[in-house]
């Protein structure tokens, strides 16, 4: 029985990917511009947004990360499909 996922799953995952990419860019930028207050504000804004998106995702589709970085559903389901390369 292969489980098919709703389009919201992909939408949410892409949104999370976009926000995380912005965080990567801002981190690299802030490494060389430690005093840029606007960039730090933007970084914190996106960090908060990323947390919210992760929480929203995990409530619907299960844990994103392991070893306590994500809550677990019942039963122990972190090894359910799809894996990142199966998305």
């Amino acid at each position: 029985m292969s489980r098919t996922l709703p389009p919201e799953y992909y939408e949410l995952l892409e949104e999370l990917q976009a926000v995380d990419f912005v965080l990567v860019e801002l981190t690299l930028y802030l490494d060389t511009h430690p005093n840029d207050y606007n960039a730090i504000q933007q970084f914190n804004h996106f960090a908060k947004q990323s947390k919210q998106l992760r929480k929203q995702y995990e409530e619907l589709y299960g844990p994103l990360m392991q070893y306590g970085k994500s809550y677990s559903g019942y039963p122990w389901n972190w090894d359910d499909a799809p894996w990142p390369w199966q998305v």
Partner: protein
Amino acid sequence: MFTQVKYWNPYIGPFDPCPPMRVKSYQTPPNLYIGFQPPNMEQYSPRQALHCGTLWPAFYSPYPSDGREEE
């Protein structure tokens, strides 16, 4: 402004065993020309940034490979 890719014509020797490459190209992305990044530059939206591979349009490089193969 600057071009993203530049071309040059290598020297072609008379005894070259293989067919000569008349035009060769090399990439010159924007980061070569901008130097230390100024603060508060214009930014893409998150989705667009993900698509383009950079958060700032000034650094966007499509890495073009087409252009003058033969001259």
